[in-house]
C-alpha cells in the first residue's frame, strides 16, 4: 500500500490489518506517554483546500503522536487564493521534502491526481475529496462498529479484546440522510461491504445519487420501515450538507421540519432500536435536523468515541504508509 485514496481499493485482508494496527495504536494512547518515536524525522503535510476541524486536527494529532513533523497548509491564506494550481502546490511540497501528504479537496479525484501525476513521490492520504471518498472516516466507523459489535476476536491472545482480527460479517448498518453529497456514505458502503457487513441507505429520493442501484447495498426511502423490519445493528446519521445545496439545483426537501420528521433520528425512533444497536454520526452534527439532542446524547451514541478512534485509525494509516518505506534514503543508522 503506497497511498490511501479510496476504500474501494482495499482488500479485506488490508482493511482488517489496518483496523488491527489501529487497535494497537489505540492501546498506546491510554498510556501516560502517548508519543511513539516511529516516524521521527519524517514530514507530514496537511493540505486542506476545504474547511475541516476534526479531520485536520485528528491527522495532526496522529502524526505528532508518531513523532512526525506536521506542516499545516490551508487554501485560505496561501498562494492558492492567488490562483496557484494544484500541480504547482504539489511541486512546492515535493521541493520541501514532504514524506506524506494528507489532502482534502473540494474536487473529487484531486488526491488521485496528486498521487499519480508524478508531481510528488510522497504517500498521499485522502482526507475527503468532493463527494467521492473519505477513507479514514470509513475506517474509523468500521473500527468503532467492530469494537462494539464484532464477535470477540480469537486472532490474538489477550491484549486488545476489541474484536482484533475480526471482520464485520453479518452486521447490518443503516446509513441515513444526505447520501447524494456524502463521501462518507460512499466510503462506508465500499468498506463495510468488503468487511462483510450489509448496508442499507435511507434517504429521500432527491438525496439518492443517480446510479445507486450499482452500489453493493440496498436503498430505502422509509426510515421507520427500515428500523422496524430490517433491525440494523448500527445507524449512521449523515449530516445534511446545506453548503453543497445552495447551487443551481435548488432545494432538495420542502422544509427542514419535514426532513427531520421523516429522516431525523429522534427519541421515538431511538427507542425502537435494538438494545445493542449504536448510533453514529461523522460530525459536525446539525442537532435538531438529522439527529435530535436526545439521540446525540444517549447511551447508544458513540459519536465522541468515533473522534477518539479517528486518531488511532489515522496513526495506523500513517504508520502503514510511511514506516516501511525502503525506497527512502536509507542509511541513517
Amino acid at each position, binding site marked *: 500500500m503506497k497511498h490511501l485514496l479510496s476504500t474501494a481499493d482495499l482488500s479485506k485482508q488490508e482493511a482488517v490489518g489496518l483496523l488491527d494496527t489501529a487497535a*494497537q495504536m489505540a492501546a498506546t494512547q491510554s498510556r501516560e506517554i502517548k508519543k511513539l518515536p516511529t516516524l521521527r524525522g519524517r514530514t507530514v503535510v496537511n493540505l486542506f483546500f476545504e474547511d475541516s476541524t476534526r479531520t485536520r486536527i485528528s491527522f495532526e494529532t496522529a502524526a505528532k503522536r508518531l513523532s512526525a513533523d506536521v506542516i499545516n497548509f490551508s487554501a485560505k491564506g496561501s498562494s492558492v487564493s492567488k490562483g496557484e494550481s494544484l500541480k504547482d502546490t504539489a511541486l512546492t511540497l515535493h521541493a520541501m521534502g514532504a514524506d506524506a501528504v494528507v489532502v482534502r479537496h473540494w474536487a473529487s479525484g484531486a488526491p488521485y491526481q496528486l498521487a499519480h501525476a508524478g508531481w510528488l513521490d510522497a504517500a498521499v492520504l485522502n482526507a475527503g475529496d468532493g463527494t467521492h471518498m473519505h477513507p479514514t472516516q470509513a475506517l474509523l466507523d468500521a473500527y468503532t462498529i467492530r469494537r462494539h459489535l464484532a464477535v470477540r476476536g480469537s486472532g490474538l491472545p489477550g491484549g*486488545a479484546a476489541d474484536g482484533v482480527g475480526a471482520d464485520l460479517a453479518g452486521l447490518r448498518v443503516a446509513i441515513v440522510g444526505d447520501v447524494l453529497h456524502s463521501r462518507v456514505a460512499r466510503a462506508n458502503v465500499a468498506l463495510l461491504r468488503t468487511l462483510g457487513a450489509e448496508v442499507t441507505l435511507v434517504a429521500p429520493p432527491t438525496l439518492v445519487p443517480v446510479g445507486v442501484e450499482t452500489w453493493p447495498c440496498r436503498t430505502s426511502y422509509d426510515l421507520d420501515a427500515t428500523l422496524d423490519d430490517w433491525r440494523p445493528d448500527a445507524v449512521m446519521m449523515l449530516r445534511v450538507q446545506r453548503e453543497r445545496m445552495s447551487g443551481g439545483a435548488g432545494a432538495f426537501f420542502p422544509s427542514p421540519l419535514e426532513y427531520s420528521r421523516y429522516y431525523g433520528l429522534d427519541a421515538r425512533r431511538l427507542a425502537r432500536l435494538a438494545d445493542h444497536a449504536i448510533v453514529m454520526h461523522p460530525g459536525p452534527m446539525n442537532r435538531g435536523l438529522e439527529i435530535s439532542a436526545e439521540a446525540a446524547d444517549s447511551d447508544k451514541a458513540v459519536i465522541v468515541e468515533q473522534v477518539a478512534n479517528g486518531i488511532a485509525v489515522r496513526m495506523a494509516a500513517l504508520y502503514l504508509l510511511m*514506516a516501511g518505506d525502503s525506497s527512502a534514503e536509507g542509511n541513517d543508522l
Partner: protein
Amino acid sequence: MSPGPALPADSEPDGTTVLGASDVARALTRIAHEIVERARGTDDLVLLGIPTRGVTLARRLAERLAQIDPAFDVDACVGELDVTMYRDDLRRQPTRAVGVTRLPAAGIENKTVVLVDDVLFSGRTIRAALDALGDLGRPRAVRLACLVDRGHREVPIRPDFVGKNLPTAQSERVRVRLAEVDDVADAVVIAGRDDAAGERGAR
C-alpha cells in the same frame, strides 16, 4: 528477534540442530534459578517477553519460577512487549505488523523487569525494547535473558542470563523452534553453515 539476514521464511528447512528439547528445558531451568539468585527471591519480578518466541519463553520461565517459589503468581507477573514502533530499521524493511504490548496489571514501576528474547544477535531489538520500556514506566532494574547468544553485537548491550553461547558467522541463521509457536519439538537450529564456511575460505 534478529535471527540473521532477512531470508524468506522456511527457505532452508534443514540445518544443524545444536540444542534439542531437553537442552532447551535444562537451559530454561538454569536461567530461572539464576534469576531467583540474582534477585534474591521473586519479589517485584516482572518477566516481559519480546514477540513472538520471547513471549513463550517468558511464560515458561515464569512457570519454573513458580515451581521454585510457590508465592510467584505467573499470570500477574508476565507480559509482552512489542518493540516494532521503536525499531531503528523500520525504513529498511517492508512494513512490519504492530504487535501487542500487554503489561501485568501492577505495571512495571519500581519492579525488576527481565526482558526475555529467543536469540540475542545485533542487540538492536533490545535497544528498542529499552526505549519502549522507558515510555511505559521506570523499572528499578532491567535485566536481559535470552535462550541463545550468537554474538555479533552492534550496540553495547550484554545479556544477564544466557541459555547457550553459540559462536556463529554473521551469515548464518539461528532459529529457535518452540512447541507452542511452531508445532514441532523444541530445538535451536543453525542454517547456512556451508555458505558461511565458503565465505570464510574466500576471505
